[in-house]
């Protein structure tokens, strides 16, 4: 770690205003604490981390990796679910209670073979007829996370026992 130096140690109302700056040896990269109006007018305290090569004390917001003046998505839970199609066509859904007590934002991914993942909702169409042969999606309400697989017509290689799985993330931020 580079040098750490205080940038302000003046007092206000009996309290000492301080901040710490961490340098990587070339640029000031991390600011922790006091920065006059550094987090918006009248907001003087927070945390900033700059991109490599940029001085955290002067960098534009676009050159900051982290700025506590801005909210960020916060992952509150993650999980996996798997569904098995009961026949060569049909609808199957599974659910798990997430315990959060509110409707969180959700994103879900499904394996696409090998090490690839694809975002949901996933739609697949027959290359010859253009007919939609599969819909797979994740859903969430204030109680449950759902993985739903709908195969309205028989795809060329779909068979009973066909499975889809998902890796999902729930966020502290609510959907409403």
């Amino acid at each position, binding site marked *: 770690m580079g040098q750490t130096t205080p940038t302000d140690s003046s007092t206000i109302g009996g309290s000492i205003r301080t901040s710490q700056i961490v340098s990587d040896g070339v640029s000031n990269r991390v600011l922790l604490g006091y920065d006059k109006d550094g987090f918006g007018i009248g907001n003087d305290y927070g945390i900033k981390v700059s991109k490599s090569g940029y001085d955290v004390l002067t960098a534009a917001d676009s050159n900051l990796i982290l700025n506590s003046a801005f909210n960020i998505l916060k*992952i*509150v*839970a*993650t*999980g*996996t*679910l*798997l569904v098995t199609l009961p026949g060569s066509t049909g609808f199957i859904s*599974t*659910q*798990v*209670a*997430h*315990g*959060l007590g509110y409707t969180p934002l959700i994103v879900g991914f*499904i*394996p*696409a*073979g090998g090490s*690839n993942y*694809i975002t949901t909702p*996933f739609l*697949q*169409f*027959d*290359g010859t007829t253009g007919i939609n*042969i599969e819909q797979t999606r994740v859903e969430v309400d204030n109680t449950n996370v759902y993985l739903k697989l709908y195969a309205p017509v028989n*795809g*060329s*290689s*779909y068979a009973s*026992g*066909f*499975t*889809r*799985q998902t890796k999902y993330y729930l966020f*502290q931020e609510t959907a409403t």
Partner: protein
Amino acid sequence: MKVFINAEGKIVGSYESNKSGVEDLASMPETTIGVVPQELVDRFNDPFDEAHPLGCIVVDGNIISIESPDTEQISTNK
């Protein structure tokens, strides 16, 4: 982390929260009958262990299969 198992011993889900108490409130998926032992959860959390929750078959608390689930390859022009 909770890892859920169905009647056939197949692992069909997992749930993990970093918020205190939330994980305890999570229930099992409707197609499951229980959770796997903590020793297996520790294996699934080990990045150097080849075991992955989904696709494993568990019998009497032991992994007897770590084959990938029978998930169809996704193509852009099926």
